[in-house]
């Protein structure tokens, strides 16, 4: 019970630290002329460890906070992160695998999905994001996501307690 009481505070702390590191450090570390996204990694890890609901909730909350600090249309990051977090959660639950190479593959796929989704929805609401930038952005998001998702899973386990993988295994047994 006492563990659960701290979950919201820990979750907020993780999202806040990820956003601050993103805008003060990660945005300067360019890969193939684009930058990785630490906040997206948190969202993906949330989806992998906690399923669709947790992925979507983290995506919406983290995206909304991030939207306050960027010059892109307000709410667009919240929308795309929520969709990506939800999608990752649905796939992770269906595959019933939250360890090994699956999170890495899902994080890479989520990076590509985020790049395409954000550009497409941006264009839909009237911002002329060039589609030519998508491959470089997708590559950077996929690489950073693939590298950092496993350590980030451990951070999410610290927030929410026992790994969802263990719970799934118990259920399956």
């Amino acid at each position, binding site marked *: 019970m006492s563990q659960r009481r701290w979950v919201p505070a820990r979750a907020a702390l993780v999202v806040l630290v990820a956003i601050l590191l993103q*805008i003060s450090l990660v945005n300067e570390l360019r890969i193939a002329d684009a930058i990785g996204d630490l906040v997206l990694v948190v969202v993906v890890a949330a989806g992998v460890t906690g399923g669709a609901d947790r992925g979507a909730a983290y995506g919406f909350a983290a995206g909304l906070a991030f939207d306050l600090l*960027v010059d892109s249309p307000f709410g667009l990051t919240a*929308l795309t992160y929520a969709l990506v977090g*939800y999608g990752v959660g649905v796939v992770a639950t*269906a595959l019933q695998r939250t360890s090994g190479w699956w999170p890495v593959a899902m994080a890479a796929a989520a990076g590509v999905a985020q790049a395409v989704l954000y550009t497409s929805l941006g264009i839909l609401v009237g911002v002329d994001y060039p589609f030519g930038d998508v491959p470089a952005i997708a590559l950077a998001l996929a690489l950073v996501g693939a590298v950092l998702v496993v350590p980030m899973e451990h951070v999410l386990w610290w927030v929410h307690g026992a790994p969802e993988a263990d719970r799934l295994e118990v259920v399956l047994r």
Partner: protein
Amino acid sequence: MAISPPTGSRTRMLVLVLASVTLVVVGLRDVPVVRDVREGAATVVSPIEGAISTVTSPVRNAWHGIIDYEDLQRENERLQEQVAEAEAADIGQTDAERQLADLSASLNLPFAGDVPQVTARVVAGPRSNFSHAIEIDKGTDDGLVVGMPVVTGGGLVGRVDQATGGTARVELVTDPEFRVGVRLATTGALGTASGQGRGEALTVDSSISPSTPVDAGTGVVTSGVDRSAFPPGVPVGSVSTTRQGPGGLSLELDVDPLVDVDQLSYVTVLQWQAG
């Protein structure tokens, strides 16, 4: 193994999507509450961001050392060549500088002249892949107001699009949302330049007939027409290519910006306000 989430989960997701879409619609209407909250967030985060940025600078430097090594090597060779050329051209340059100063004085260019200026340091680059804005260390306390043009000695950088007490955000010329009225330095033909993203040339929708030749390298400056958000004569870029616009009725120009917005350390805000 069906990929099908529970109905409750789908409902909750639908609520989040609707909430996000509502926020996007509200944000697009530039509602004051959203603007105020964003400015408040920028005010709170800016000092923390600066502190983290200082602490993590060794990481950044190490990264650039690894990733940009070949670029640095080429840059080093290029600079060495430039130093040699500069030494040889020193005498001629002094004369050229005198002529340029005389020319500026005689033409009384607003860009070079009497618009009050505030020099600011760039404290942060774009915060995401879809951001085309930088942060500077001057704000409303220094007299900055949203909409003011931002330049360097090389030409137009962008304009202030958010200002708090001690910081401001500058929308760069490369932002797809950026628009500026321009004219060709040679003929005075007018057009509207718009950003096309990082590293891309600006596109100018001009009023020039498609049959009119426009040479590559032709200078483009801000038009400063009535109530313009920018003073006239600020250098923007040079024409790289031309093509027929939609319908074939006018020319469309690609213009390479004069200022490399990825390499900015200091900028100057012109305290110019439209109309």
